[in-house]
């Protein structure tokens, strides 16, 4: 059953790598933006909210094309990154990670924002009276209390990355070993005669990975939830 060709193994490996990187890289931004949206009171807040949610409503191909325009080698951001930091996104696995991060970002921000809004702010002022500076209050009170939401956001982001297809293929194409993630590989199989068996193998693996991610997140969330609720 698991007689995968090297290319197929590559696709599995790459998908997980892209998913984890997308999740990890967007986490600090996700928490930051969620904090801004939940607590901030500034001009342009609804605009920011709209921009964050845009990938959710735009066709993924459009998001991918916009990424290509801005982060491509000749794009305004892409050329800057290339020139000053030597970071290239286009047609690299990092580009796939960027596309996945952007696509999963609204889901992550939503989950974290909801948990921040549920935090009892009176606990934070209590921590303040006990001598904790705002940064310490965040680290010792807010963060532990929003942990379930953060975990949920991370899992959503990872799951979105595992399934992301349109934006990725538009932005970084479908290069085996470099940008061919699981969905792209399955898609490729369906386009060639006799690819059914390969598509089925990868589909099953895809299902397995998603299930494992869900179960792990469930266990995590329950543990943290118990700790916080019981407390």
């Amino acid at each position, binding site marked *: 059953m698991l007689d995968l060709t090297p290319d197929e193994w590559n696709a599995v490996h790459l998908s997980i790598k892209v998913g984890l990187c997308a999740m990890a890289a967007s986490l600090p931004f996700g928490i930051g933006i969620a904090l801004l949206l939940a607590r901030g009171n500034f001009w342009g807040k609804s605009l920011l909210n709209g921009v964050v949610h845009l990938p959710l409503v735009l066709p993924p191909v459009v998001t991918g094309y916009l990424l290509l325009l801005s982060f491509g080698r000749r794009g305004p951001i892409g050329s800057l990154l290339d020139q000053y930091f030597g970071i290239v996104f286009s047609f690299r696995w990092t580009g796939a990670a960027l596309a996945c991060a952007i696509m999963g970002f609204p889901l992550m921000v939503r989950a974290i924002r909801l948990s921040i809004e549920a935090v*009892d702010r009176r606990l934070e002022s*209590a921590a303040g*009276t*006990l001598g*904790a500076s705002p940064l*310490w209050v965040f680290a010792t009170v807010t963060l532990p209390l929003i942990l379930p939401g953060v975990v949920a956001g991370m899992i959503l982001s990872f799951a979105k990355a595992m399934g992301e297809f349109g934006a990725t293929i538009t932005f970084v194409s479908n290069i085996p070993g470099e940008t061919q993630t699981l969905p792209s590989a399955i898609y490729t199989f369906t386009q060639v005669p006799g690819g059914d068996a390969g598509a089925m193998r990868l589909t099953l693996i895809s299902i397995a990975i998603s299930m494992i991610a869900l179960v792990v997140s469930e266990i995590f969330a329950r543990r943290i939830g118990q700790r*916080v609720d*019981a*407390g």
Partner: protein
Amino acid sequence: MLFVDIHHRLGAFDLEASFQSAGRLTALFGPSGSGKTSIINIIAGLIRPDSGRIVIDGKTLVDTAQRSFVPVHRRQVGFVFQDARLFPHLSVRSNLLYGRWFTPQAERYAEFGRVVEMLGIGHLLARRPALLSGGEKQRVAIGRALLASPKLLLMDEPLASLDDARKSEIMPYLERLRDETKIPIVYVSHSIAEVARLATDIVVMTNGKLAASGPTGEIMRRLDLLPPEEVGEGGAVLDMKVLGHDEAFGMTVLGTRAGEMRVPRIDRPLGAAVRVRIRARDVMIGTERPKGLSALNILPGRIAEISQVDGSQVDLKLDCHGDILVSRITRQSFQTLHLAIGREVFAVIKTVAFDRANLSPGAPLVLTSD
């Protein structure tokens, strides 16, 4: 020494208060909505006042004229909230140690073991706050504030959300806090029973304005300062000494400047100090020493002050050899007896009018006439 002089506007509500207090426990007293809680929030630094100045022991926390404002986490002011606000994700022990961690080593004076023992929370240390009763939560919250070694302890109606049984469970701990620690306490309350029992000084607030401030005894006998629903609880608060016990009849004899008072037997040694609240409505007036009366406490005194409450009632302040008693009687009795300032009268108080507000070993005992 606490000095407060602030002006703050909250919507249509105008808060203006200026007072100072050197008392061990200063009660901010007044009906809900009178601005008490806003004042301690301002002292704690949770609210920034529009203008004014707050100084604790020579250290300026707020001075809007100088544009100085010490942020809440640098004030070293302990805060016990009405809702205990324990951190749900931490054990009781971690909750208690939370503030200690932020206090510089040299300024830590509160000892963990002593505070835990004083509040009787040793058996709770491993638990989660969600599994505590309301009274236990509040005791842990007090311990948590104390262990941060604050220079001033603020308490915002710490008993208001508890039932009577829990209240009397915590009361002795508050008294120990006042008597055994050196930190000054500012205590917000709308309950006369609490204030009369705990406060050394009282600041009365009405409608965002300061109505009066002074030592407990002086403020408590001014019934006009009390909100209508609490007037029945008002009266004289006197500090007395145990002179002896009458075992045969189950009574204790207390000494005051006004004379001896017989109250139900209390478990306090000879010479112990007892604070007694005598409600004004429990004090009858006789123009001559009554005979054939069941009441045991008959104290001679002189009418020092008369204030008309409304059409039907009159308040009298009686000077009984230096101790002031307050009596509320009907206007009809007042007229029939031809009472006037300077007239010698007798105050009559039933022994059974006193009730043990609480009886807990080691804690100073307070009797309330109710």
